């Protein structure tokens, strides 16, 4: 994207961001010379006893994937509110990210192109058999030849394995989170994806997930909730994931089912989850009757066929003719009027008279998007993500009120949240636990890491318990510390810290000395001091440093440990940290004569310990 002029920024700001219900009575003012926005709200962090720098660090810890070195200063300089307004606008030019992403050729493909290029495994074999390329009998016993034949066939046809598509998709996720300048948009993309979860584990929807995130979630992540709801409802990923693509009016007695013989019938999955998980919440006040009726309203909402085999009726009529029959075709979405239940329905007390069509579903989703239960459900979920695992009812009320008054405008709800004292309260600061993805990306950002290959990072995140895009249930990953932190995952977090800082995460380059302005710390204590300030800005780590220094400052210790452990009988009763007092002199002078390699290893170790430390797991 090209840098935009002040006027454009102004207009996009006016259109998208500005709350005309100016908070605190502050008046809108803009510096027209440089296009800097001065927002009409002030964050009440001083009331909570935070300094401006601490407040900036808190803000960054919640709305980015982690502060980069020096970013706290930059935000203070710019003004916290200004930084926030910029993030809400989400229109910072992002050329270097675009550059990073340009090497991935699948990221811009449409769903149709994806379906054409990346057939599923079974599909390829069927095509190959149909084309006579594979003789199934001769291949019964020779799997190697079978695979070879499939590979050749795919190459000939210009087809690619689905896993390549996913791999590119995972890589872009890592890169956007690590390097995107519009961090809030990326964080919110993650939030909404998880809210409207779909999963690669479900084969039918898997290949449509990249476009789902790209076209449905990200562009609307800071928009209006109602848009997100409608667009997710109509996207192939969701239609397949929760089965609405197959939901249709049951056949009337004696009716010819034609091409839909196999699949006719009502499927309630989406109708249930749209109420339970996407809008009102399980206790939102709907009944099983409402679910069934809503499912009837949504019959015929399906995916526009992507290959000729599925087109049937579509090919027999022109678009105009179809439109006259009540069909709606928008991109990948198809409202198939023939499959719609045309009877009367009543959902949540609202009557949909008999004979309605596509519009019924739109009305239903609008109703849900503006329901009081939805406002409260979404407000709470946002507060859990950004404030604390157990947000106060008062805060949820404020946010829900804004949600209802402002037509589900997500930016406005976020402004209300950040303008509330609860956001800055000491009960909230550092009380969220980073998810594995937040931890990994945050660590790379804090070290100015250069990601040459994002995939190993993705794998580390999976290993730590967050296999992105593979969460099977429509609930999405639970957003609470106790889900992320368990014995297995915690050791992996520590190991990740050590691996990253010692340069053992393949594809990620770290230059620790450069990070410290070219200074190589004299000893472990100096390293601890310098790097904890860089990596954990605005945290009081005196106690940590004091405790760790004797342990780390003693390169002879490792040797002693080895000796001691081989004589396990003596070592077993020794408390950690006591060794120095037990006749083993502190070998600070030995540290001085350590070789460069040892020094580098020790520096990596110190930084790894900081990243694996409990303090760095919090945000």
């Amino acid at each position: 994207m090209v840098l935009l002029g002040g006027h454009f920024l102004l207009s996009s700001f006016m259109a998208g961001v500005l709350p005309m219900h100016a908070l605190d009575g502050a008046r809108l003012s803009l510096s027209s010379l440089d296009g800097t926005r001065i927002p009409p709200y002030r964050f009440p962090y001083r009331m909570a006893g935070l300094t401006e720098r601490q407040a900036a660090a808190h803000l960054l810890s919640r709305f980015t994937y982690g502060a980069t070195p020096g970013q706290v200063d930059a935000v203070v300089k710019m003004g916290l509110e200004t930084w926030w307004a910029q993030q809400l606008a989400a229109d910072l030019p992002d050329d270097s990210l675009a550059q990073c992403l340009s090497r991935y050729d699948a990221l811009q493909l449409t769903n149709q192109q994806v379906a054409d290029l990346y057939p599923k495994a079974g599909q390829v074999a069927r095509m190959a058999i149909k084309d006579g390329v594979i003789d199934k009998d001769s291949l019964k016993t020779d799997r190697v030849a079978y695979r070879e034949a499939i590979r050749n066939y795919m190459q000939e046809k210009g087809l690619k394995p689905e896993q390549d598509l996913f791999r590119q998709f995972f890589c872009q996720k890592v890169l956007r989170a690590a390097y995107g300048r519009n961090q809030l948009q990326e964080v919110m993309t993650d939030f909404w994806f998880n809210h409207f979860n779909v999963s690669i584990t479900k084969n039918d929807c898997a290949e449509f997930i990249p476009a789902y995130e790209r076209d449905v979630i990200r562009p609307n992540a800071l928009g209006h909730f109602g848009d997100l709801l409608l667009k997710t409802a109509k996207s192939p990923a969701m239609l397949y994931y929760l089965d609405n693509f197959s939901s249709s009016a049951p056949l009337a007695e004696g009716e010819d089912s034609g091409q839909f013989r196999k699949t006719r019938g009502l499927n309630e999955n989406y109708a249930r989850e749209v109420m339970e998980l996407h809008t009102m919440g399980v206790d939102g006040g709907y009944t099983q009757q409402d679910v069934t009726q809503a499912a009837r309203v949504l019959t015929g909402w399906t995916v526009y066929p992507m290959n000729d085999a599925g087109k049937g009726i579509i090919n027999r009529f022109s678009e105009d003719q179809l439109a006259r029959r009540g069909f709606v075709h928008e991109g990948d979405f198809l409202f198939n009027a023939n499959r719609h239940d045309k009877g009367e329905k009543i959902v949540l007390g609202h009557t949909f008279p008999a004979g309605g069509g596509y519009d019924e579903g739109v009305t239903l989703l609008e109703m849900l998007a503006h329901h009081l239960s939805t406002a409260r459900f979404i407000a709470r979920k946002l507060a859990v993500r950004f404030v604390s695992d157990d947000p106060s009812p008062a805060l949820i009320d404020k946010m829900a009120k804004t949600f209802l008054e402002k037509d589900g405008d997500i930016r406005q709800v976020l402004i209300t949240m950040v303008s509330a004292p609860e956001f800055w309260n000491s009960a909230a600061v550092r009380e969220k636990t980073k998810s594995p993805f937040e931890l990994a990306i945050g660590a790379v950002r804090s070290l100015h890491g250069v990601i040459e290959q994002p995939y190993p990072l993705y794998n580390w995140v999976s290993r730590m318990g967050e296999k992105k895009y593979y969460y099977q249930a429509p609930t999405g990953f639970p957003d609470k510390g106790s889900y992320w932190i368990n014995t297995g995952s915690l050791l992996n977090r520590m190991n990740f810290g050590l691996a990253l800082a010692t340069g053992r995460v393949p594809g990620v380059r770290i230059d620790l000395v450069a990070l410290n302005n070219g200074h190589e710390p004299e000893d472990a204590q100096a390293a601890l001091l310098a790097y904890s300030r860089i990596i954990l800005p605005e945290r009081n780590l005196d106690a940590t440093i004091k405790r760790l220094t004797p342990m780390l400052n003693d390169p002879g210790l490792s040797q002693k440990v080895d000796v001691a452990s081989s004589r396990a009988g003596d070592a077993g009763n020794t408390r950690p940290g006591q060794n120095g007092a037990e006749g083993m002199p502190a070998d600070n002078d030995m540290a001085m004569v350590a070789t460069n390699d040892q020094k580098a290893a020790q520096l990596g170790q110190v930084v790894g310990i900081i990243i694996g430390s409990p303090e760095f797991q919090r945000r």
Partner: protein
Amino acid sequence: MVTRRGFLKGGGLALLGVGLMGGIPAFMAEAAASDKLFRPYKRKRVLVCIFQRGAMDGLMAVTPFADTYLQAARPGLSLSAAKNGNGNPLIDLDGRWGLHPGMKAFEDLFREGRLGIVHGIGSPNNTRSHFDAQDYMESGTPFNKGTASGWLNRAVGLLGHDAITPFTAVSLTSALPRSFYGDHPSVAISNLQDFAIELKSNPAGANIAARSFEDLYDQTSSGLLQETGKESFEAMKLLQAANVRNYRPANGAIYPNSPLGSSLRQIAQLIKMDVGLEVAFTESNGWDTHFNQGTDNGIFARNVADLSNSIAAFWKDLDASQDDVTLMTMTEFGRTVHQNGTGGTDHGRASCNFILGNDVGGGKVYGNVATLATENLEDGRDLPVTTDFRSVFSAVADGHLQIANDRVLFPDWVGAKAPVMRGVGGGHDFFITASK
């Protein structure tokens, strides 16, 4: 959050002041060296579940070999129990059912009355989507996708005591399976050997790092991080002491060199270490045999051989712990009665499952399977589901773990338990009529 303080107290490690210089407390190192493992916990009963992902062809695993309809529907996929034909014959279990020859490791277990088989088992929801059927089976609610928890996680909650160790519920998988989703502590471990602080090619550095981490987590003001940190290090020491790397299975048991074999070997290790394991899970892949399924040789034969050899080795290895363990397999659905056009079978309805243990009513094929005439099939093509999977799972949970609260374990389910466990269920009222 469920507190796991008990682990620290019950484990005794903290009380003994095991601070750790070299990672292994002396008495544990000695115990490990002398093959006498440290046993801080009272022995527990353990349920081990294996999910066969992809839908196992139950009709090929355990074949009604005299059924002429089946032979006609599967001219290329039929095996015979006769010993004069080509290839290996089926193992005749009872004159009606024949075990696939690849599963000869199961024969003795069956004849000894330890291995039970349920045929015609499946879900009342007739979806033929792998994803949906697995999801429903693992959540235990076949008509509700929004159920946040998995049935095994709920089982952990019904054990009648707090999870006192980090190893109460362990899945030997890379990610937490749907069955384990939920609020009760459960953990996915892909390899027990990874349960350590690692610093490649610098073990001394790793020791320093481990000590530093242990100290930092001990001091943190976050209760969650502090408790879990303590547990993690205790667990790590426990595993190090048990010397998991050099584990030797008992009784000369030889596990197949496969993911399933490796998982079951590690589950056996955990069981024998007495670290408080009560619910274990792992999976077996490759059952979606649309193409070239094979007969006594081929993909399916390899799969069942791996399954049965892994399980038989596990059982042998358990040795004195056998009484504590029940193992159960499950798969999301079965496959079409007819073979398809590519030498395989497509998605069907009912399949079969295996239950192994000393309190299993073994040596019997349970279920209500009619002849495979078209009129007896679901939708005219599939083995109908005549036993709801929940009637079997709940019977196993009840019979082995004494979990009888079916309303929590399987909400929405009202049915009778299948009589697969000694002293649980009875009669034949657990059969359900095939849904049309």
